[in-house]
């Protein structure tokens, strides 16, 4: 009998802690961190998959998976509730012999070879759930096929200064990868890896098996698999991506990515409905803007009640901004209440927080530009900030 199969499936690495988001990932995995009013970070990768025609996604979880598991559920919000394929959460599991956690990104895929093989795919797209971008993986797959590539790495051009913090690909004129360096001091190129790969599965599978057998390996794609491919002279290409792409792995970059949504030029093209970003929906009512409210240059999700002043801010689902409260340059995550007279400036406030009356969080910059700041103040999830408390810029609570 000829079995059904998929040409291409995706594996999404969502097990990282995201320790540079500090309090925001204390008890939840980075991909589950709320973003942009109504989304979570993982929505971008999942929606890109579906919009690219990939209907099978293995989501590898390990660190604090409760919220993420709950959020993904049966995959219905992303149209990933399929009879054959769909969204599958893949945690580490025990076996008869050699049970282990996911030691690294390569080991996470290695331990799920059986999952991938169920779909007998020719290609596998590897993704991480910590970037904000809209990308058609299908175009990248076509590029991979046209080049006869075995490993294609999506790259975005960055400045030399940024290049020193990223994985950098050197390429020839055909975009064949000639060298790869992680965080080089003297970058030879400006092609930075976006953490998006297309592999020809049967080739990758051999390398995963060999890598797992190597006791000296760190079982990491960047440190081990990619260098092995390079060393062996495998067909490797860099796929140039143009458009908005942002790693939101740090508190300042997470804040910036939120503020980018307020840019009239709309760099992410979030308003482009031909490439929608899907999210799980919680049946919140429409937002109510009261007579006393003053709102400008802000994104406000549903289920909010706004009675105070909101400027240059992103207010997530279900927040209440009381009368006399002022919120400027802030990211206020779901179901948080900012009470009377509280003053929130240039801050990220986690979900389900209560900012009591007259608390002061962050500070307004001296200059005129609303998007420069003296440092972002951060309040973790489910915190109550007592009345009159002052939280300084760069402070993390």
């Amino acid at each position, binding site marked *: 009998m000829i079995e059904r199969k998929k040409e291409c499936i995706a594996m999404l690495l969502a097990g990282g802690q995201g320790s540079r988001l500090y309090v925001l990932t204390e008890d939840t995995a980075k991909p589950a961190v709320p973003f942009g009013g109504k989304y979570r970070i993982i929505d971008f990768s999942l929606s890109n998959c579906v919009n690219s025609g990939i209907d099978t996604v293995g989501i590898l979880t390990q660190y604090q998976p409760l919220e993420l598991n709950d959020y993904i559920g049966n995959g219905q919000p992303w149209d990933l509730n399929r009879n054959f394929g769909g969204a599958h959460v893949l945690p580490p599991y025990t076996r008869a012999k050699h049970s282990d956690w996911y030691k690294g990104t390569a080991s996470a895929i290695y331990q799920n070879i059986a999952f991938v093989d169920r779909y007998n795919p020719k290609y596998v797209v590897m993704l991480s759930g910590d970037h904000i971008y809209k990308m058609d993986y299908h175009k990248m797959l076509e590029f991979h096929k046209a080049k006869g590539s075995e490993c294609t790495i999506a790259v975005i051009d960055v400045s030399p200064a940024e290049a020193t913090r990223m994985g950098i690909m050197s390429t020839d004129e055909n975009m064949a990868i000639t060298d790869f360096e992680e965080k080089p001091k003297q970058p030879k190129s400006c092609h930075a890896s976006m953490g998006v790969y297309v592999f020809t599965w049967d080739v990758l599978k051999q390398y995963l098996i060999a890598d797992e057998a190597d006791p000296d390996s760190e079982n990491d794609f960047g440190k081990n698999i990619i260098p092995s491919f390079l060393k062996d002279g495998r067909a490797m290409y860099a796929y140039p991506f143009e458009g908005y792409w942002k790693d939101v792995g740090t508190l300042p970059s997470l804040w910036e990515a939120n503020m980018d949504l307020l840019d009239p030029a709309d760099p992410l093209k979030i308003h482009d409905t031909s490439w929608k970003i899907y999210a799980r929906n919680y049946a919140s009512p429409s937002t109510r803007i009261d007579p006393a409210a003053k709102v400008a240059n802000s994104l406000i999700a549903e289920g909010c*009640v706004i009675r105070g002043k909101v400027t240059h801010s992103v207010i997530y689902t279900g927040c209440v901004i009381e009368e006399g409260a002022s919120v400027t340059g802030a990211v206020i995550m779901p179901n948080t209440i900012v009470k009377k007279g509280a003053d929130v400036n240039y801050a990220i406030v986690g979900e389900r927080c209560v900012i009591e009356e007259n608390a002061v969080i962050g500070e307004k910059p001296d200059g005129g530009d609303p998007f420069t700041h003296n440092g972002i103040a951060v309040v973790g999830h489910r915190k109550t900030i007592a009345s009159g408390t002052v939280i300084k810029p760069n402070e993390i609570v």
Partner: protein
Amino acid sequence: MNMTGIIFSETYGEDLDVFTHDRNLAAIPFGGRYRLVDFVLSNMVNSGINNVGVLAKQHYHSLMDHLANNQEWDLNRKNGGLLLLPPFASEAVNHNNRGKLDELRNALNYLEQSNSQYVLLADAYVVYNMDYRPMLQAHIDSGADVTIAATHEPDGSTKVYPSVLQADRSGRVVSYALNTTARPGDYVGMGCLIIAKQLLTSAIQELTAKGIYHLERDFIQHDFNRGKLTLNMFPFEGVCLRIRDVDSYFRSSMAIIDESVGAPLFRGDRPVFTRVTDEIPTYYGPECNVSSCVVADGCVLEGTVDNCVFSRGVRVCKGAVVKNCIIMQGSTVGEGAQLENVIVDKWANITAGAQLKGLATNPVIIRKGAVV
């Protein structure tokens, strides 16, 4: 739950033709992101009813589209769930709204196959947030044949209502009148009643066989007046908005902007569910001036708006002034346009500089897709 829900999605004497040109009553947008059907349907779901039939006769594509993914209401079930019940291709198709019994005849099989002992019949024109479980309990405790939910009108009303009741202290109905005004102390029906399935199905069969189709007049009132049917009244004290004509649509929409009306309707413990369309959060422009508004997702508001209800994906351009308006999904108000007391149906385009002014008692209505 021992009760099946039936929703009437058509108009029965309501005067909402301006909105029902290509949709039925239940699919009329209301309260920003909702359709009228969402309120009774969510009430049923929040009351544990997971067997819901929606009766539809005409123009039901919009309703089908809205309910297609019944997952939003958690009604994608193997046992029960939501079923749209359009007419069989029978003589009934050729008659417009002969009556609810006629439509219920189309649901006979559906009712007979359900395991529930009771049926909740609900009209879609009434907007309220109610748990039907205490009502069912009251129905069982009363021993009456039919229990009707109603609001108390201590001051009476000059408005004519489809059903007006008088009840004694125990809730036993002593008078049941149709299409009349309420005198002080009367109760006004909410288009919502509970009846035993057996009693309902035999009434449907008996009466429709004789060519009698009016549920309230020819069955309930008729049998009640002859002492053959006992009625019980279940008082409801929450917010109840009856959308029966343009005036009540406009007033009710404006009323929900006020927290005292809006908050009890949209309670966190009994959410109102609706279709999800994955719009992005609403963007408020740098120079916008927004006060007293109810706003759904996906809007871009850059002008001055006061006392308005915005459905999803509405755009109000710079310099536009929009006051006391209801703007439905996907419509645009161009730069510098001035609107007051206007209801703009879906996907309409109010071009730059246009000036439209209605009266609070007689709003201007812009049809779906119109360019003004």
